[in-house]
């Protein structure tokens, strides 16, 4: 027996989020909404599981958010659906926690990091070589912990748990070092460009 997801048009799965949002807003196409749920419903559920009491409350929250989604998409002009949905999910979790009188964790109210474009798409062959040279230069200026985690993760292709085992850091520390090192590299390249 075919499910409704299987009868979706095949072209829909190739469409970006913005196109799906536009198709629902302009044409009321239910298939677009269905596909957005397929892409992000489990992620919303995971986020709700992180901040709310348990999986049951998280499931209710997922249903509530996607029930309101049709109206919200028509009410707000959504450009970046993924970051907008993450923010909406966190806001709803904050509302639920306030209703329950539970203290709100700082991560829920922190300013979200803006989405960065895929820089590779903007580079030609010569430019890529120049960027790689700058990366190697910037890599030598990193801290030891950052440099070590970056080397293991991107050059050795080790998993986070393996890096944690090898270096003695916790998994969260490894993730933090990788993010910080990558952020430093991006800024260094940008400064070299200027």
């Amino acid at each position: 027996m075919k499910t409704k997801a299987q009868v979706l048009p095949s072209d829909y799965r190739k469409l970006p989020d913005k196109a799906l949002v536009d198709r629902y807003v302009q044409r009321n196409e239910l298939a677009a909404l269905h596909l957005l749920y397929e892409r992000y419903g489990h992620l919303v559920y995971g986020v709700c599981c992180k901040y709310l009491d348990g999986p049951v409350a998280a499931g209710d929250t997922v249903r509530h958010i996607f029930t309101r989604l049709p109206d919200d998409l028509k009410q707000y002009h959504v450009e970046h659906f993924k970051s907008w949905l993450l923010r909406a999910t966190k806001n709803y979790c904050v509302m639920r926690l306030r209703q329950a009188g539970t203290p709100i964790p700082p991560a829920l109210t922190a300013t979200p990091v803006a989405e960065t474009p895929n820089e590779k798409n903007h580079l030609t062959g010569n430019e890529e070589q120049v960027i790689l040279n700058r990366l190697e230069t910037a890599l030598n200026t990193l801290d030891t912990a950052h440099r070590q985690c970056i080397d293991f993760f991107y050059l050795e292709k080790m998993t986070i748990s393996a890096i944690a085992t090898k270096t003695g850091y916790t998994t969260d520390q490894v993730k933090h070092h990788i993010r910080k090192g990558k952020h430093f590299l991006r800024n260094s390249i940008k400064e070299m460009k200027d």
Partner: protein
Amino acid sequence: MNRLLAHIFDKSACLTKRQLKNYVTGVMAEEECYAVERHANDCSFCSEAIDGLSAHNSEAVNLLETLTPEFIHDHFHKNLPPVHLNSIAPAVTAEPAPAKHKKNGISWVQISALTATLLLAFFLIRGWEPAYRKITLPVSADNTPPVVIQNPEPEPGKKKTALPPTEKKESSATARPDPPAAKTTTMTDPLRDEKDISPVQEQNTATDLPAQSGTTTRLYNAPSVAEETTATISTSGTDHTNHLQLANEAFERAHYTKALHHYRQVLSNNAARQEDRDAAGIKAARCYILLGSKAQAITLLREIADGNSPHSKDAGTLLAELN
């Protein structure tokens, strides 16, 4: 090393449901696990979802399997029911078009009706006389020529008196039918502006001074009071003395046409005395003067002045005044 660093900023698609579940449950191969972690390192959404599911491992994963998009369809169809085809959908009765908003202002029909009412009231107040009230003044039975009166000068100090309503009743009681060949008389009313008479009295004096001053010509069809009086006299067989008496009364009442008619009767009566005829002639001349016909007055006065009557001197004096 450079080639490996080339994809450090690349972005990949978010984790699927299966990837998330396998990663959390630990049933994923090492290469795929590395790909998930590499993406999660850049994607806060997936990273937090992994953290959340990892906190409630088995229970959360079991519940994740039950989260299907069916509720979206149910909710969507509840709020936005599917549109039926015309062949399936029941016929919808057309609603009557909403009535046009009535204007608060006065319509042109009301304005025209109001204007017509005002015009009617104006004519009624101003004494508009319809065609049936117009009267042609017939010429008397002796076929005297129509009297043409033009801009007579009112006699100074002469005050007009109107006939009482009873006199009209008496006159109409002795009236005779219209003569068969009635001639139209055109005349103007020189003294109308000086008169202060009511519409009823105006009817009584209409035969004497029928037209309004200088501009309007009135046609009278009803028999004149003079003719009615004449008919009464002729039927009773009275002589010129009665005519003279009636003429003097009419002259005193400023009914000059009526008086002139009686004076002419006296003048045409050969049985009358010469003295009475000359007196009537002078009075008739005065009537001609008051009615604006000086030429006829001069002719009449010359005839009297040329004679040897006691009134010749008066006629000469009046003639001199006229000249």
